[in-house]
């Protein structure tokens, strides 16, 4: 299991945006509150704060591919300084790397990308591309530090909660108005009490509280995006100290829309 926390985006911009659906909508806590471009291909640029990051996740997007480019920030030459003779520029060939993710096969509207950690200000360009003739959009983007734990044990539970309206009509038929149906996950895993359990409880959940963030619930075996979900804790997690140095962590998540 992986969790992105904290979210270290300090600024967000886009090369295209519908004025009624600005890119700032992708940097809030509501996946239904969309950023919309004006064509089927547009780039969102994230500026990460000094805490840096190593992961980025997107939710509620209709993009079929997501090209992620991570680059360090270029610094301007401070005025008044002179180039000392005998020195040469150092070229960092790893400054800019692009990886393209195919979001289409799962059709779940989510994506997750990882890169080597950069411990400082850097920039992430996200090129979203949806089907021809559509307008590309995205609900939420989370980028920051990846916290990695063991994957859930067997017998974890995954389900759905339906917020639709269902009523009986006069003849016994059913009237329905479909509203949001969200995913739920209940699972356990055994972690080292220290540091993993305490890090999860204190560094992540105690600070996060009821707020949502990006989760990759199963990360080590299953690598597709069905397990990437924007969720919050339906109940705060708990731990059973089952052995001298091991704790059974109980987690209950519900998807946020």
């Amino acid at each position, binding site marked *: 299991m992986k969790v992105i926390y904290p979210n270290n985006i300090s600024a967000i911009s886009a090369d295209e945006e519908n004025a*009624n*659906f600005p890119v700032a*909508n992708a940097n809030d806590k*509501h996946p*239904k*509150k*969309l950023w919309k471009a004006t064509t089927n291909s547009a780039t969102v640029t994230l500026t990460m704060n000094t805490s840096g990051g190593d992961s980025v996740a997107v939710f509620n997007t209709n993009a079929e591919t997501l090209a992620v480019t991570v680059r360090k920030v270029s610094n301007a030459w401070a005025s008044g300084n002179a180039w000392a003779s005998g020195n040469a520029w150092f070229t960092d060939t790893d400054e800019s790397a692009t990886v393209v993710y195919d979001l289409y096969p799962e059709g779940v509207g989510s994506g997750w990308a990882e890169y080597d950690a950069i411990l400082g200000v850097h920039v992430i360009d996200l090129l979203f591309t949806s089907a021809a003739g559509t307008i590309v959009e995205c609900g939420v983007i989370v980028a920051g530090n990846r916290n990695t734990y063991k994957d859930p044990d067997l017998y974890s539970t995954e389900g759905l909660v339906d917020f639709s*309206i269902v*009523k*009986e*009509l*006069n*003849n*016994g*038929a059913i*009237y329905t*108005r479909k*509203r*949001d149906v969200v995913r739920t996950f209940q699972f356990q895993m055994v972690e080292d009490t220290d540091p993993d359990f305490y890090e999860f409880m204190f560094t992540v959940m105690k600070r996060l509280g009821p707020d949502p963030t990006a989760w990759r619930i199963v990360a080590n075996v299953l690598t597709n995006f069905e397990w990437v979900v924007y969720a919050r804790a339906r109940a705060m997690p708990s731990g059973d100290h089952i052995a001298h140095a091991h704790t059974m962590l109980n987690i209950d998540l519900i998807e946020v*829309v």
Partner: protein
Amino acid sequence: MLLIEFTINGTLTRVSQEGIALTHYWDAKVIEFDPIQYKIAQYYGGYVELGYGSISFFPDLFNDDWPPPVNGLISIYYTATTEAAKELLFIGTAHLTGVDREAVTYRLAGPVYDETVASATAYNNDLETVLNGILTGIAEIDTLDVTYGRVAVPNVTHTTSGDKLAIDLASDIAAFYSHLFYIVGTTAYLVDMLLNTGETTYTEFDFFPSQYDYLEPVAVARTGAFSQFSAYPYGRDMTVTQYHDTQANAEAALVNIMSVWHKPRARFRIPLLGSIPTPGKKLSWTDTAQGQDTDMYIMARSIQYDFDNEEAIIDGEGAISAG
């Protein structure tokens, strides 16, 4: 879908109950919204007034405007499809009534029709002309739409005694002649209680279990020196203000009033789908859930739009027969 435009300190804010991306994004900031309701003054006619209660918002709607403003302009719309197709339900002012940790609550206040008609004002003209004069004398009303008025427009003869609120006087006169009127924006719509503004037929896949009832009958209806007796001598007495001096005209009005009063009534519940019904609309259906199949129609009089429960509850009189 309920769409609400709320002006907070001069800035237009679009909110809804569930977060809806249409032409604009209508943010999910409404916690609770009391049903709004058209309520007719009398069962036999008069002013169908739009009543409204309170609306509660999530406190974070006011993060940039804390503390929440004391009041603000508010417009409430309904649409089943697109933003362009939204229908105006209410426009007025929201006045702050309470703030707590979980909600910011405003009470809705609509236009106040406070113009009065002076004592000893004499009317002697047809109903539509009289009502037009009274209603357009109210600053917030520009037009009286008489599309659905009675074909043979009755005459009004009346001299007021004491000052009266114009809206109340218009309501009483309309009711005496078995008409209703309701107001949307700056237009008042006059509807003959004996006619309808168009018919919609519902199948049993279109409505929820409904109920049927009758009013206590009227034994005698009186106005001034005139009266009319019904076929129900055990019923109640009714007295209404007289708005015509001639016996035949007054008694014809009483006959119509009792005719409307004695019709079977229904409280008809439908999902909020498509265009929402307005007063005067004829709704007809067959109910096979009763002891025997039952055909029914009503004309919409009082209408409650319950957006929290996704249904409209329509009350009115009509006719019932074996299906």
